[in-house]
C-alpha cells in the first residue's frame, strides 16, 4: 500500500465575497464615469438631480417588481396600471377639490393606494387562484388597464384641477435639504422594501417560494398568499409612483407609463435579481433603475449617434453591461 502525504487544504472560512453582487454598482459607477467624460454638463448638480429624480418612478415600481420576481412571478401590467391609478387619482382629487380644498390631494393619494393595492390583488389572485402563467395574466391586465385609462381620458388627457396644482407641485419639484422629495420617497420605499425582504418572515418566504414553491409548501408557507401579496406590494408601489408622478405633468394620458414594464423588469434584472425567482436584490434594483436613466441621459447629452439609432445603442449598452458583468464575475 502506497501512501502519499497530502497538505491539508485550508478550509475557507467566513462568507465569500461574491463579486457578482457588486456588479450593478460597479456598472453604475462606470457609466457615471463615462458620462462625465463624454459631456461636462453631465456631472452638473442640476443634471444629476434631474436624472435621479426622474428615475424615482421606475425605481419605486421596480422595488415592487423585485418582490414579484423574487417570488417567481412577473408583472407586465405595471405601466398600464400606473396610468390607470393616475387617472383614478386625478378624478378623485378633482372631485374632492371643491369640497375639501388641498386636503383632496391627501385623500386622492389614499384612493390611489387603495386602487393600486386592489389592482395588484386582482393580478395576484388570477395568478395564484387561477394558476395561470403570470406572463399571460399581466399581459391581459396590461391591455385592460390601458384601455381603461384611454376610456377615462376619452383618448385625450385628464388634467388635474388647476386649484390643486400649486399645492401638489412640490411633491415632485420640491426638495428637503436639497434632496428632491421623489428621491426621499424612493429612499423610504427602498428601505421599507429592503427591510421587508431581508428582515422579516414574509421576505424570507417570498424568496423561498421563488426558489422552490414545493418545498415552501411542505414547510407550511401559504405559497398562494405569499405570491398574491407580492402583487399587492407591486400595486402599492405603482400607486406611490403615481402619487409622485402626477404633480410633474399634472395630467394622465393614454400614453402615461407606456412600456415602463420593460424598463422596470430590465432594472430588476440588471440589479442582479434572477427572473426565475428565489433571489431579490433591492439595492441592485435601484442601481439598475439609475443605470437605465443615466444611459438615456448620456445618450441625449452626447452627440455621438443619429437620433434613429439611440434605441440601438441603449439596447447594445445593456447587453454589453450584462456581458461584462458575466465575464468579470465569471460564473
Amino acid at each position: 500500500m502506497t501512501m502519499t502525504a497530502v497538505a491539508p487544504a485550508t478550509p475557507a472560512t467566513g462568507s465569500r465575497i461574491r463579486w457578482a453582487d457588486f456588479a450593478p454598482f460597479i456598472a453604475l459607477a462606470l457609466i457615471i464615469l463615462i458620462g462625465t467624460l463624454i459631456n461636462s454638463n453631465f456631472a452638473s448638480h442640476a443634471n444629476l438631480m434631474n436624472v435621479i429624480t426622474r428615475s424615482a418612478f421606475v425605481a419605486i415600481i421596480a422595488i415592487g417588481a423585485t418582490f414579484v420576481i423574487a417570488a417567481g412571478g412577473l408583472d407586465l401590467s405595471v405601466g398600464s396600471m400606473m396610468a390607470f391609478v393616475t387617472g383614478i387619482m386625478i378624478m378623485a382629487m378633482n372631485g374632492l377639490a371643491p369640497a375639501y380644498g388641498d386636503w383632496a390631494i391627501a385623500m386622492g393619494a389614499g384612493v390611489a393606494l387603495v386602487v393600486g393595492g386592489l389592482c395588484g390583488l386582482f393580478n395576484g389572485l388570477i395568478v395564484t387562484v387561477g394558476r395561470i402563467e403570470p406572463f399571460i395574466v399581466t399581459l391581459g391586465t396590461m391591455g385592460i388597464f390601458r384601455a381603461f385609462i384611454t376610456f377615462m381620458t376619452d383618448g385625450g388627457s385628464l388634467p388635474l384641477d388647476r386649484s390643486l396644482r400649486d399645492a401638489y407641485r412640490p411633491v415632485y419639484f420640491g426638495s428637503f435639504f436639497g434632496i428632491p422629495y421623489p428621491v426621499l420617497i424612493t429612499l423610504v420605499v427602498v428601505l421599507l422594501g429592503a427591510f421587508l425582504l431581508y428582515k422579516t418572515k414574509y421576505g424570507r418566504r417570498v424568496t423561498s417560494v421563488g426558489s422552490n414553491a414545493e418545498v415552501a409548501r411542505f414547510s407550511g408557507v401559504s405559497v398562494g398568499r405569499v405570491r398574491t401579496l407580492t402583487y399587492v406590494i407591486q400595486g402599492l408601489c405603482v400607486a406611490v409612483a403615481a402619487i409622485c408622478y402626477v404633480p410633474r405633468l399634472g395630467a394622465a394620458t393614454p400614453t402615461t407609463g407606456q412600456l415602463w414594464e420593460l424598463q422596470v423588469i430590465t432594472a430588476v434584472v440588471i440589479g442582479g435579481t434572477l427572473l426565475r425567482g428565489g433571489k431579490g436584490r433591492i439595492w441592485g434594483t435601484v442601481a439598475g433603475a439609475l443605470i437605465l436613466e443615466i444611459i438615456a441621459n448620456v445618450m441625449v447629452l452626447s452627440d455621438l449617434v443619429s437620433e434613429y439609432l439611440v434605441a440601438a445603442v441603449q439596447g447594445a449598452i445593456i447587453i454589453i453591461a450584462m456581458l461584462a458583468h458575466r465575464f468579470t464575475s465569471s460564473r
Partner: protein
Amino acid sequence: MTVQALAHAPSGAAPLAMRAEGLCKAYGAITVLSDISLDIEAGEVHAVIGENGAGKSTLMKLLSGHVAPTDGRLFMENGSVAFAEATEAEHAGVVLVHQEILLAADLTVAQNLFLGRELTRGFMVDDKTMNRRTAALLARVGSVARPTDRVGDLPLAQRQLVQIARALLEDRKIIILDEPTAVLANDEVAALLEIVRSLREQGVGILYISHRLNEVQALADRITVLRDGRMVGTWPASELSQRRMAELMVGRELSMLYPEKRPVVAGEPVLSVTDLVVDDGVSQGSFSLRAGEVLGIGGMIGSGRTELIEGLLGLRPSHARRVEVNGREIVHRSVRSLMAAGLAYLTEDRKGKGLLVDASLAPNLTLQALDGVNPGVVLQQRREVAELKKAVSDYDIRVRSLTLDAGKLSGGNQQKLLLAKIMMSSPSIIIIDEPTRGIDIGNKSQIYGFIDAMVRAGKACIIISSEMPELVGLSDRVLVMREGRFVAELTGAEINEENVAYAATTGRHTAAAGEA
C-alpha cells in the same frame, strides 16, 4: 366519526405513537399500496424494508400528510387523524425526511431549517439565534456545512444532513427517515445511527427505511416488510437475519451478493489521465485504468471524487496535461468527445443531473444514445419503445405504466433507469458514481453481476462508492482520495475496509456502520 383511543401495544411497555389501518393509495388506475396496517411505538425504531418500488416512500408520504390516502385511517394518541397537509402532520409531531432532497436551493442552510417557522424578534427575523441553533444542529448530525452556506452550493451528502437536521429542529413524536444513509459515507452513517438511538431513548418513534440491511439489523426493534404494495408482515428485529429479510422482501431465495473475484488480468491501459486539475485545484490527480479492471475510488464524503470525474469529463471547468482513451489522446475534452471515445458516466445526482423528471421513460432512456438508437435524423419511435421494454426487463425496472414520467418512479427504479440509460451507448469504459444508491439488495447483486460480466468481456469500470463493502467487494484496485488528492493506492489483499478508512482519514480508524 367515532374517536377511538389508541390501544396500547401488545408488548405492553411503550405507548403507541401512531397506528395506520388499511391504508391504500392509487394513482388513477395504478394501485401503489393496498391495505397496509402498521403501528409505531414511542421509543422504538421501526424499520420498513422492501424492494425498489414496493411502496415504502409512498407509505411514508401517507403517514406524514404529504400525500392523501385513497382509503384507510390513521390514529394518534387522541384519536383518528387525517392530515390534509404535511404541515398539519408536523404540528401533530410527525415529520418526514424525504428520500429525495427537498430544500430551497437559493436559501441558506439556516433559512431552510427555519422555513415556515422563522424565529422573530419584533418584526425582524432573528437570524443570529437561528444561525446559532442551526450550527448546533448541524454539529449534532455531523455536518460540516455552515448555517450561512447556500444550500444549492452544498454537496449532496451535506444537503441530506441538512434535511435531517431540519427534522430535529423541534420535538417530534415520530420521525420518518426515508433512506437517510443512501448518500452518506461510513462516518456520517455512524453519526446518524447514534442520533437515531438517542432519539429512541427520548421516546421518539422512528420509522426507518434503508436498503442497507446491516443498518436495519443494528438499529431496528421491529421490521415491517412490504412487497409490491402489500404488507408481508411485521416481525421483531431479533427474529430476522439479514438473509431472511432479503428473502421476505424478494419472495425467493437470494444468491451470492458479490460476484467472485476475477483473476487479475493486467490488460492494456484504456484510460490514462495525467495531472488533471479541477476548478483551481479543488480536486486533482493522475490515474489510469486497464482493460478488464474494476478501479474503485474511495474516500470520505466531500473528498472530491465526484468533482474529479466530472472535471475529467469536462462537466466542470478543469484542465489536464494529457488524457488518453484507448491509446488515443483526447485533445478537446468534453462529455461528447469522451462519450464518443467509449466512456459513459452515471451521476450520483439522479434528479438534478441524471433524469428528466418531467419526461416519460423512453426519452430518458435514449437521451444519451440518441444517435445510436436513431441512426438518421428521424426518431425511430418504435425502436425506442422496444429498447424501453428491453431495458425494463433487463434491469428489472418496476413500473406499472411505460408512459409514466420518470420523476414518478420509485427512487431505486430511477437509479435502474439511469443505469439502463448510460448502458444504451454500449460504452467500453463506465464510470459509476454510487452505483447502487437506493437499490434494494436483490437488485444489487444483479448490478454487481452486471459490472462483473462487463469487465470479464474486456471492458473497464471505475466505481466511486461510499459503501465500503461494495467498494471492497467489487474493486481490483482502490484509489483513496482525501481533500481532493489521491492519498493511497490499494491492490490485492490490501483492499479491505480498514485500509480504505485509514487512508481516507489518515490514521483515524473508523468503525464502519453496523459492524459488529
